């Protein structure tokens, strides 16, 4: 039988803010275009929860077949998701999950596990410092799920794997390389010994690296990030950057679309559809393509 055409709406978190999201969007559109049974409605919430909720309303209004949502905030979107659920539209959450309270209303989650990512970064840090040292953390923008989860995963795991590594201070770098560079400059003034820096993503990590290099202290410090960026990958190749977490936006986007189609076609899908985000260091970087962002 001829497969019917599905109209799938997606509301993304904040496309302009970083390359990951942009690449994700491109990959999603490409995947949707490749599949002639899919008509995609691609929206961007611009980081604003309220706008995302309005977009969900608009999508319900348009009576799409399925909604994919990249939550700007895991808790705040729950009622809107519930509304879509009540309207009989299956909701697939992508990239970062919504709060537990909303699990009843979604068909599936597809994406990376940020808590695990944070934990893996802690393990990397541990490795890099041989289990002993003083470190600082530069976290993502306060109040955003990814930032919170990665920090939590890192902070919970660190004392488990190496109790002798001391996290001295955490300040937000707002996913912004320049801001992170500024924060690191102040850290460098403040602390005579810094053995490691954990940054919520490589973009910020490279900012911290910039600051340390300018102060001539980069050699003493191990940099660990997350979401491996091209600049992080290169710095790793040069041996300036210890490690990161490899996460491909293309995998992320394709997994989301596939999950949505599986749901629409009535296949059985797991509630939590994590795709793997492995550790990447100089030692194993050859196994990975250089990120395109």
């Amino acid at each position: 039988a001829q497969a019917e055409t599905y109209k799938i709406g997606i509301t993304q978190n904040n496309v302009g803010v970083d390359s990951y999201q942009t690449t994700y969007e491109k990959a999603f559109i490409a995947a949707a275009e490749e599949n002639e049974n899919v008509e995609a409605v691609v929206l961007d919430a611009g980081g604003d929860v309220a706008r995302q909720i309005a977009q969900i309303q608009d999508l319900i209004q348009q009576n799409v077949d399925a909604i994919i949502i990249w939550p700007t905030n895991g808790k705040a979107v729950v009622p809107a998701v519930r509304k879509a659920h009540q309207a009989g539209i299956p909701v697939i959450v992508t990239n970062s999950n919504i709060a537990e309270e909303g699990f009843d209303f979604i068909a599936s989650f597809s994406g990376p596990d940020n808590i695990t990512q944070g934990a893996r970064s802690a393990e990397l840090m541990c490795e890099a410092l041989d289990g002993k040292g003083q470190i600082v953390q530069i976290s993502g923008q306060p109040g955003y799920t990814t930032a919170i989860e990665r920090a939590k995963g890192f902070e919970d795991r660190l004392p488990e794997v190496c109790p002798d590594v001391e996290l001295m201070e955490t300040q937000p770098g707002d996913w912004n390389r320049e801001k992170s560079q500024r924060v690191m400059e102040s850290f460098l003034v403040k602390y005579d010994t810094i053995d490691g820096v954990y940054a919520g993503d490589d973009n910020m990590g490279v900012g911290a690296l910039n600051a340390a290099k300018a102060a001539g202290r980069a050699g003493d410090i191990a940099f660990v990030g997350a979401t491996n960026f091209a600049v992080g990958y290169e710095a790793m190749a040069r041996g300036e950057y210890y490690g990161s977490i490899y996460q491909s936006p293309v995998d992320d986007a394709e997994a989301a679309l596939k999950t949505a189609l599986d749901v629409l076609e009535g296949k059985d899908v797991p509630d939590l559809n994590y795709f793997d985000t492995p550790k990447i260091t100089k030692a194993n970087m050859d196994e990975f393509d250089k990120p395109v962002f």
Partner: protein
Amino acid sequence: MADTSKNAFVTWLTRNPIWGFIVLIFAFFSFSNEYFFDLQNFQNILVQTSTIGLIALGMTLVMINGNIDLSVGAVVALAASLAVDLQSWGVFAAWGNWAILPAVAAALASGIVLGALNGFIVWKTGVDAFIVTLGAMIGVRGLVFIYTREESFFAMNFAYSDFGASSVGPLPTLAVLFLLFTVATHLLLSRTVHGRNTYAVGGNRDAAVNAGIRVGPHMMINFMIVGFFAALAGVTLSSQMGAATPNLGRDYELWVITATVLGGTKLTGGAGNIIGTFGGVLAIGILRNGMNLMQVPAFYVLVILGMILIAVLFLDKQLNRRGKQELKT
């Protein structure tokens, strides 16, 4: 007679070009998008604009006063967090749905108190409202993060978000609330002594002082009003979402000011009205909704919105220029 009423209408329209513009984009979206012209969608537009709209009502008063309030976005976040979090407190456990009431009351009170604080500082120190509220914009956001410990809150009680999604007759409750407050603020501004004094204080502060109007307390009241509206917007927004996040309301101040100025309120004070502000809010709401429905890519939405803002202003200027007899200054 008919002729003069028609002329009066034309004059009114040239003085409030925003309404002409609304008709224009309304027609445009109705013809170019199948989902736009639909009662449900109109309700969506009203609900979606109600957040910015409520704040803009208060902002109109403050701006007519010759002041400005940049802290509204942060107040939205604070009030939303309070409203959502407090209703789940243990002390209200036995209250059932009624727990929403003290939570909302506390949220609204926080807005009024912060407004009073802004107003009091402006009054007593004489520091420009721009600086006072710019400080508050940063500081109140700090309060939000302290209170929420960076967490988002989620209303366990779906009655709260059901209220946000409920209807009064054919209209969504939030839209009705917005319309009611629009009318109330319009009456306040045009019919009451306080409202009239708002124009006096902004139009000519010396004259107001000389006439014995107590400018300081007067301005403080208007700051409290905008604080109240920002808090109310936080409450309605959080009831739409059934949740609150500490980053809620970022950039709102800019959009509120934009809508208010589009509606004809002068930054220098002394001029403006609620009907115009309502138009300004609606214009932005329709544009956003229409472009969403038409799936204009996000990047282009920014460019188009920016250009349209300027175009409306340009139109206004063209319509209201007195022609050749104007002095070339």
